[in-house]
């Protein structure tokens, strides 16, 4: 900063401390709740410090789950979420990088048409075409399958654009040198383009993993058998008990477990995450 104003700096610290507190509060409360017993909520005094039931609650979620609401143990749901998030992120990156390669490095009839078809996906979030998309997946017999969970979500204009942008900045001479060195298109793709896109792929992966993990509406629709439930969609089923207070301590334990994997990704790979975020949205 231009000049040193201790008062302004102090204010900045205050603002940020309040900000961090507000940002952290919901998760803290969820964590605290997940360490208490079922009756601690009924006393009317809301606990703000962790209780003694952490191990008990979490191990319960992993072993039996909340059978009253027909939920499988969380291990199964975490696994399903992981499979869905990985399929979506890896699938998105794979099909996007291939099509960006085709669009940038080849000239062929109807190239611009292909480009616009891909572009169109940008304008059609799954939420707005939910009914007919569901019908397609149902007709294809993909309900309650991992394919049905992930494939409809892997087309992505943003990722394609990102790779297109990246490829356009690669010097032409690199391609020409590779051609003279005897590399055909796929060899060039594998030996030169892919290694040079490494960090972008990683950054995109972080973003897409979180996107996939956090899907809600789609898994809610296409999974009706409990062995395919994902954790994010599962929580709601758990909290939705008729005529009774949900078992908040278990719901919150599940929420914490649902948040943990993407949270770790964001915190541990903060640099890649920020890069991916700022770049995919340009």
């Amino acid at each position, binding site marked *: 900063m231009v000049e040193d104003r201790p008062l302004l700096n102090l204010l900045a610290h205050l603002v940020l401390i309040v900000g961090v507190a507000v940002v952290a509060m919901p998760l803290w409360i969820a964590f605290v709740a997940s360490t208490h017993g079922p009756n601690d909520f009924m006393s009317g005094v809301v606990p703000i410090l962790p209780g003694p039931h952490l191990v008990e609650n979490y191990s319960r979620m992993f072993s039996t789950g909340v059978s009253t609401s027909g939920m499988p143990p969380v291990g199964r749901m975490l696994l399903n979420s992981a499979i869905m998030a990985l399929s979506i992120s890896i699938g998105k990156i794979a099909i996007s990088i291939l099509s960006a390669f085709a669009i940038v490095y080849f000239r*062929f009839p109807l190239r611009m048409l292909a480009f616009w078809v891909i572009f169109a996906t940008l304008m059609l979030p799954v939420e707005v075409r*939910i009914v007919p998309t569901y019908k397609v997946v149902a007709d294809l017999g993909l309900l309650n399958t991992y394919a049905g969970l992930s494939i409809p979500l892997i087309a992505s204009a943003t990722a394609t654009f990102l790779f297109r942008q990246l490829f356009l900045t690669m010097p032409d001479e690199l391609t020409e040198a590779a051609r003279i060195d005897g590399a055909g298109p796929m060899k060039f793709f594998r030996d030169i383009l892919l290694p040079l896109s490494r960090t972008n792929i990683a950054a995109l992966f972080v973003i897409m993993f979180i996107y996939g993990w*956090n899907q809600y509406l789609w898994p809610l629709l296409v999974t009706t058998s409990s062995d395919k439930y994902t954790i994010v969609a599962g*929580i709601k089923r758990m909290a939705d008990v008729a005529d009774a207070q949900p078992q908040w301590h278990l719901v919150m334990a599940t929420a914490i477990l649902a948040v943990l994997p993407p949270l770790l990704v964001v915190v541990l790979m903060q640099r890649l995450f920020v890069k991916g975020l700022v770049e995919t949205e340009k």
Partner: protein
Amino acid sequence: MKRALFGNRLLPWLLLAPQLAVTAIFFLWPAAQAIRQSFLREDAFGLSTSFVGLANYAALWGSAEYLNAVRVTAIFAVATTLLSLGVALVLALAVDRLVRAGKVYTTLLVWPYAVAPAVAGILWWFIFNPTVGLLPYVLDRVGYDWNHLMRPRDAMILVVLASAWSRISYCFLFFVAGLQSIPQSLHEAAAIDGAGPVKRFFTITLPLLSPTTFFLLVVNIVYAMFETFGVIDATTEGGPAQSTNIMVYKVWFDGFIGQNLGSSAAQSVILMLIVIALTVIQFRWIEKRVAY
């Protein structure tokens, strides 16, 4: 454009095939179906369908419920966007001021991004739960009887808070990036010209940040309109008395629960038009920025 190109004819189509197939099967075809369906009406037993022209759209225009959804969406989107943008800007300005400590705060501020909107909804639902929640307990002390199960305004505040909260880190990171791209020399020049911090904020920082702000405005409206299904469904489910029934939620509800396919399809088409408009605006902006 590239100069160094490969000459193959078939290969590019093979490379494009997976993307085009997914797009055609899961995007274009359903979108076309939505458009077709929006001109049809099924009888009560689903036995026959007939072409009804724009009747489904006309029905929406006359439906108090739908107009309510439009109004609710507008309030919800504007409130969510302004709240998350405002908070994020204040936090970003503070972080920008504290060079070294800023990094630590940034790490502590980014992680709501990892929380799914649906989970964010559950968390806030719990916090505001009239019987076991922390905030109603506090509000009770100051004489406010919080009840989002009964009172529409409370419900709206709840979904706005949950949606804005899960969006803060996103806006925050973009504001930080925007602030960092303003050259330090501009601040120095203004300081030499006698502008104090407040004046500098309004004459230098804010104008130079306006592209970022505009971008965030658009993407946050898109977010609030289309990606907050989870928040609503995990909390109020559109209630009480339709007070949080945003358009995306209504499309789903009418289509899946109400089985009113024609109306749901017409609503889908309207939403698509809105997304297209917002996308065009966003791209206009990108073009303009490239021209800088």
